[in-house]
């Protein structure tokens, strides 16, 4: 237990490593961190790691494992070695994300109104017709301040070419930001000395910025509009995050049954009667928010909510209907959107994507199924996917049929080799693959939280970072410019 863990024998093994260059020297922005870790007392790092795991359990930062009796709550594993991003690289990521979210917001507005992007022949019409997440109920809607996607968590990956790509835009209810804040708090508590010297840009102001973003949408001009967080309830796997954000913002956490529509306004039931609600940060999918308009069998939502929304008496974040831009086929057109709406070239590229609807792409995909990752347009969390190089002959044949049957529903991408970050494995460090989800707030201005959620695939060689499949998380440090004035 008192073994000394250091980077002395660490190997990057031909992968792009976020902390070390190809000759295993620390990258400039990680030098201080590597030196500090190497100079810890033997056993110190392990002790800190265990203290953090205990704290997570104590704080109840756990997720439920479905299909088990109570008591099987797990913490989401946290690895103590942070991912470090240099200020220059971050500047580029930040401007890329701002550009992207601006274009996506214009796109969503466009397709629920005049659909100019279709009329001008940029986006094929048939794509829109078959888009499962397109909500007819949203046609002609104009959300408050013209903003549809207020809160976004975009998934980024770095391939072995060193280039960062956008893997997915999550424009519905992206989760995970609470882990960013908690991870940071735990790291600061465990390594105050390292932290102090490293000039890490702070993330602590996220809740107050989120609140400002939400208050900006309030339909009435009063000083303290009533903002609430709408959760499906304690059995939702992200419940911890919902309650954490409500607590950090100092607003009510409500469930559908706490809300009621009356005379075209929305109210919550309180011990002293009904109180009007102005803004809802909803963590329930479109399908469930209003049984009158979307799924009738939903018990989670509020009957009549959409009517109040249409009248402009309540704001919803994110707006309903944003999921259309999460469609993986529509994703492939984001670079064109950026050009079309902003007249700019895209800053952070998409992962090269073959759209099976296009005949040439389809032909290529079918001929190269053993090299490609095939994804269905509206699935997420690793479902509806074929990882060509690891799939059986039979699975590939099945997917080939699916693609032929319904080409609109599939895209394919080359298999990426995600970059790695050193991670504690037993008594030493090994590289493990990571992705990165920064969080973007779109209110009066667009704000990108410096850092984000670094998810790490803890199994050796694995590329799956999902919490349900052996993933963990790490703190993400955006290291400030030497001249920059910042406080942590």
């Amino acid at each position, binding site marked *: 237990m008192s073994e000394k863990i250091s980077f002395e024998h660490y190997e990057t093994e031909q992968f792009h490593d976020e902390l070390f260059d190809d000759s295993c020297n620390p990258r400039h922005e990680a030098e201080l961190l590597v030196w500090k870790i190497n100079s810890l007392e033997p056993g110190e790092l392990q002790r800190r790691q265990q203290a953090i795991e205990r704290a997570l*359990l*104590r*704080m*109840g930062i756990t997720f439920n494992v479905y299909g088990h009796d*109570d*008591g099987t709550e797990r913490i989401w594993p946290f690895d103590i070695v942070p991912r470090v991003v240099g200020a220059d690289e971050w500047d580029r990521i930040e401007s890329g994300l701002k550009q992207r979210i601006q274009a996506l917001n214009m796109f969503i507005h466009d397709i629920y109104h005049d659909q100019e992007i279709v009329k001008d022949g940029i986006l094929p019409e048939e794509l829109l017709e078959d888009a499962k997440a397109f909500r007819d109920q949203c046609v002609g809607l104009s959300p408050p301040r013209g903003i549809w996607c207020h809160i976004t968590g975009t998934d980024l990956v770095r391939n072995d070419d060193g280039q960062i790509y956008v893997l997915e835009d999550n424009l519905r209810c992206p989760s995970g930001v609470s882990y960013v804040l908690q991870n940071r708090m735990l790291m600061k508590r465990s390594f105050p000395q390292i932290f102090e010297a490293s000039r890490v840009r702070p993330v602590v102001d996220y809740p107050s910025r989120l609140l400002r973003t939400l208050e900006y949408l309030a339909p009435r001009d009063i000083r303290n509009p009533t903002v609430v*967080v709408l959760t499906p*309830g*304690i059995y939702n796997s992200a*419940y911890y995050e919902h*309650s*954490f954000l*409500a*607590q950090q913002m100092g*607003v*009510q*956490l*409500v*469930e559908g*049954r*706490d809300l*009621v529509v*009356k*005379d075209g*306004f929305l*109210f*919550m*039931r*309180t*011990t*002293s*009667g*009904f*109180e*009007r609600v102005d803004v809802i940060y909803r963590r329930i999918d479109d399908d469930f928010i209003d049984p009158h308009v979307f799924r009738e069998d939903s018990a989670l939502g509020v009957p009549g909510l959409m009517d109040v929304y249409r009248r402009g008496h309540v704001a919803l974040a994110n707006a309903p209907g944003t999921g259309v831009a999460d469609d993986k086929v529509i994703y492939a057109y984001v670079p064109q959107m950026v050009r079309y709406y902003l007249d700019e070239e895209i800053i952070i590229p998409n992962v090269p994507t073959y759209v099976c609807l296009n005949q040439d792409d389809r032909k290529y995909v079918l001929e190269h199924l053993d090299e490609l990752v095939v994804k269905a347009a509206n699935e997420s969390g690793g479902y509806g996917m074929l990882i060509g190089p690891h799939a059986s002959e039979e699975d590939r044949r099945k997917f080939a049929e699916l693609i032929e049957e319904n080409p609109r529903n599939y895209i394919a991408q080359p298999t990426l080799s995600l970059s790695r970050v050193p991670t504690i494995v037993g008594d030493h460090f090994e590289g493990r693959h990571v992705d990165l989800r920064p969080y973007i707030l779109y209110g009066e201005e667009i704000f990108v939280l410096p850092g984000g959620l670094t998810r790490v695939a803890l199994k050796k060689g694995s590329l799956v970072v999902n919490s349900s499949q052996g993933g963990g998380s790490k703190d993400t440090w955006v290291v400030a410019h030497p001249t920059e004035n910042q406080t942590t």
Partner: protein
Amino acid sequence: MLSRVADSIYWMSRCVERAENLARFVDVTMHLILDLPDGAAETWKPLVDTTGERAFFDELYEEATQENVVRFLSFDSRYPNSIISCLRNARENARSVREAIASEMWEHLNQFYFMVKDAAECESPPTNSSDFFDEVKMASHLFKGIADSSMSRGEGWHFARLGRMIERADKTSRILDVKYYVLLPRLQYVGSTIDDLQWSAVLRSVSALEMYRKQFHGLSPHRVVEFLLLDREFPRAIQHCVIAADESLHAISGTVPGSYRNIAEQRMGQLRSELAYISVDDVISSGLHEFIDNLQMKLNAIGDGIFDTFITMRPVESQAAQQ
């Protein structure tokens, strides 16, 4: 405050108090046994009766041995009012209002639950030592201490206090009843040394022995009943609990003290004045057990009144929107 949140805070607080009092029950019974000359055989069964769950116990266990009864009351998840069930309940309630209570409260309750869960799951759960039950008591004290020093005296705090005080009044009355049950078949002990020992055990179980002594010096059943039932200052005495609950109820609604605007306040006020103007002689001459039975029913009615007044969703049409 959201009605659902108020309800959860109220039950979170009640459940923690219930767990603490169960620990006190078990503890006082363990002490009583030590003081009884003719063994323990008939001591544990009345404890099950006191909790009002005899039929359920008989379904699950054959004999009312110490091990079985303690296991049932403390560690049996099948019994919805066992210590572990109470804490699971309290924790689930707290989880659903995490944003409305101090995070230290949640963290402590979470740890408290794991402490009991670990004890319940170990190979031989601690059914014959006081240590575990002391720990439960201390954890409950700590929970209240954290609440008192970290929550504003707003609705949330008052709902927590309301739940705690109603639960405590009910349970102090049941602890008095334990003594009643134990003594019932042994009238010859009344007034003997054994009787003395037992009454002091009862007082100790609600941490009242020292405060009692300051006030009354010698032990007499009469005075013990007076102290636990009618003392206004001792925090586990029933009258004290009712006064505190009444204060919180009025603080929540803003109703002028001494008057009522809803059924909960009315019932609470009636009970408060009954306790204020009754003498211990009246209680004993009309029968302690009957009096306690009645008191428990009144406390239940107050609980129902609170639910109807603050929690049940009222029809939309009957309410003017408040800004």
